């Protein structure tokens, strides 16, 4: 009897309460929230591009290979080896057998064709979302002289990267840097320029004088650098196309260094040492007019504009230790943004505008790191005996920097790392290399 009463009470209660519960779950579609995913390279396939004509065969091979290398090199994608492919792409127009690509887990597929008419190589491509069974964007084609086939491949890779990530690529870009040869105590330095991946290296200066810190202009047509040609550091401007340079008259009887262009390319900010004091100045390139932006008895140097040109980040030892500060582009009160242990230097504002990359020295080791523009969320990406001078890829996704090994035989070379701290790798250069500056997309 007792049990029956209790059971009926419970049953009545559960039925009475159910509408509330049911309403909570039954109202509309089933809703699920996903907050955990995986971080891993996205598998893609690049079957060899179709050669339209026997002469195009070689280019088809080279271009498709370089596209795959560009994408794989980002660390964001993983190529599925061609031996694993089930389908063969024999015609650029033929429909894609998505099931064959799904079976080998290719999430993206890049197909293309190359033709060569004796004077121009034409590359066309398409990118596909295999699991959705749709084309990503529209097919495109690029044309160039035969010796420009690498740029064609970089262009295709940039397009694919953009369609897969929603951000612009950085493959068709160049890097200017200081090429170094010889032992440490007798090192010869000269300016050099190369593709982002180390190909097509060219020297811009001879090694008769020491050169430092080259910086690309926003358009990639000029390079600022510091030279000891006259015995003391002076800023030079070099025209990349003509390979001709001239001295930038920054100030009388003083040392000028650490130059950098403004985002619109009309101004240059730099450091000027007069006596024992170093401050930051700005020069209008057209008129040559200069203006002092900082007026502190300490050392202020390494200025870098924000992408919108409204602010400048720089390093200063005004607090007694080298730290990072931000001030308005017109000068004025500076705000300190770095507060961690150790010394911070060579700040560079990201092209995206959200991060500032820097070199940090702490506990005898050097790091390349990034922080928000207010100094928060500092993250160190690398660590070594000597890492310095970060420069941003044009899309703000990758940093390149110089790493030097210890000892008398120590050499400097270039490395790149993703802003997530993954995919650290060495950039191929024939000799030693330092002071990289990544140019814009061409």
């Amino acid at each position, binding site marked *: 009897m007792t049990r029956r009463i209790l059971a009926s009470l419970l049953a009545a209660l559960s039925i009475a309460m159910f509408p509330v519960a049911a309403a909570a779950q039954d109202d509309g579609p089933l809703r699920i929230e996903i907050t955990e995913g995986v971080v891993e390279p996205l598998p893609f396939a690049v079957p060899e591009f179709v050669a339209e004509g026997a002469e195009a065969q070689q280019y088809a091979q080279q271009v498709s290979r370089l596209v795959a290398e560009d994408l794989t090199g980002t660390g964001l994608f993983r190529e599925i080896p061609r031996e694993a492919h089930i389908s063969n792409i024999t015609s650029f127009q033929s429909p894609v057998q998505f099931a064959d690509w799904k079976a080998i887990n290719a999430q993206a597929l890049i197909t293309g064709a190359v033709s060569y008419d004796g004077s121009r190589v034409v590359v066309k491509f398409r990118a596909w979302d295999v699991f959705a069974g749709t084309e990503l964007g529209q097919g495109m084609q690029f044309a160039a002289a035969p010796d420009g086939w690498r740029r064609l491949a970089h262009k295709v890779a940039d397009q694919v990267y953009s369609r897969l990530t929603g951000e612009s690529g950085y493959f068709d870009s160049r890097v200017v840097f200081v090429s170094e040869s010889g032992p440490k105590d007798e090192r010869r330095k000269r300016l050099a320029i190369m593709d982002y991946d180390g190909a097509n290296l060219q020297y811009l200066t001879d090694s008769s004088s020491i050169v430092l810190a080259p910086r690309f202009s926003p358009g990639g047509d000029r390079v600022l650098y510091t030279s000891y040609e006259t015995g003391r550091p002076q800023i030079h401007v070099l025209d990349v196309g003509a390979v001709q340079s001239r001295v930038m008259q920054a100030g009388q009887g003083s040392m000028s260094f650490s130059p950098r262009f403004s985002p619109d390319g009309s101004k240059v900010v730099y450091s000027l040492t007069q006596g024992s004091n170093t401050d930051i100045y700005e020069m209008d390139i057209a008129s040559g007019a200069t203006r002092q932006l900082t007026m502190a008895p300490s050392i202020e140097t390494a200025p870098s504009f924000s992408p919108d040109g409204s602010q400048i980040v720089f390093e200063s030892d005004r607090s007694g230790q080298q730290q990072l500060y931000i001030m308005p582009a017109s000068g004025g009160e500076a705000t300190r943004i770095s507060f961690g242990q150790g010394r911070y230097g060579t700040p560079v504002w990201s092209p995206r505008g959200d991060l500032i990359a820097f070199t940090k020295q702490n506990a005898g080791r050097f790091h390349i790191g990034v922080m928000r523009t207010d100094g928060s969320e500092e993250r160190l*990406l690398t660590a070594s005996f000597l890492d310095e001078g970060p420069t941003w890829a044009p899309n703000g996704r990758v940093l390149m920097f110089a790493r030097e090994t210890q000892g008398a035989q120590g050499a400097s070379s270039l490395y790149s790392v993703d802003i997530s701290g993954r995919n650290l790798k060495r950039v191929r250069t024939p000799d030693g290399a330092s002071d990289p500056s990544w140019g814009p997309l061409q």
Partner: protein
Amino acid sequence: MRKSLYISGGAHALLILWVMLGNVFRASPPEVQMTEVSVISEEEFAALSSTESAPEAETEDPAPPAPEATQEVAEPAPPEPEPDPAPEPPAPEPEPAPEPVSPPDPVEPEAPPVPESPTDTPPVNAPDETARHVPRPAPRVAPEPVAPPEPDTTVAEETQQAATPEAESSDVAEEEQEATAPEEAATEIVTEAEEPASAPSAPSASVRPRTRPQQLASAEPEAEPAPEAEPAPAPEQSAPAETAPQPEPQSDESSDAVADAIAEALAGGGGSPDRDVPEGPPLTRGERDGLRVAVQRCWVVDVGSQAANVTVTVGMNMEADGTVVSSSIEMLGSEGGNASAAETAFQAARRAILRCQEGGYDLPADKYGQWQRIEMTFNPEEMRLR
């Protein structure tokens, strides 16, 4: 007297039920952890208990330095498999170059004076070994850590489940599935700067070497420390792994039981069988978690991209066999980031949904009406900061 007793008993029962049900509805957040653990315990428990000894070793570093030094020497075998998976992401390219980047680590003894002292060579080794301590950043970051596979096993082209993608390729899939192990995964991105987090302790490590040579000499032939070291971490890990799943199944059971009971009560009381689609009772928490886990295993997040700032909500219609009507997948809304980032985030979500459905998601057919239409929200916020 009895009447009042019954009334009192009934009232108390009502109160208890009310509390239980109230808690059940509020306690949705803990779901997340529950299923994760249950997933680990089923398949990867064995792997975890055997291989995660490495991380344990790290934490113990400071205290028992000497024994571990020998332990590392005895264990160079396990770390070796790591290099195998590592070069994978960069594909079979000559990319291994990036790995050598770590050589600068040995350079780390930028405190050369110390090495100059009697223990010149050992300090050079010390950094090497501390570096090995630190679990190398696996190329894959997933909610559940997966230990590096044994040298003999082949790592699947992708995560294990993908081995059975389509019915068409059943031959290939079966072969792969039988012979492969889940790809190594860590739960966090470890940057090069974080790896030598124990680097500051390098000086203390450089002191160790004085005793090391003796121990190495004695340990190498005997190889005793290895067994000592292994048993230690093993129980530690197996214990939490065992205990963890236990409480959760319980809570799962209880919550599921309550949900089921309520659902059944309603079904008994008469539902709405008007439609030809079986409406059924609401999905239990376990069923919903099963779907969530299945999708999140395929959701690839590019943590450094602008798309990682976007939360997208995706709507889709389902077939009765658990497969997604791919043409019905649509972005219902997004939050954060620009249109391009939102589109990229949507594409990643769509790929996750389609890629992991295999032959259809495991959903109860008798409740088809409950999941005929699904809205999934992909929120990368927790992934972003890793």
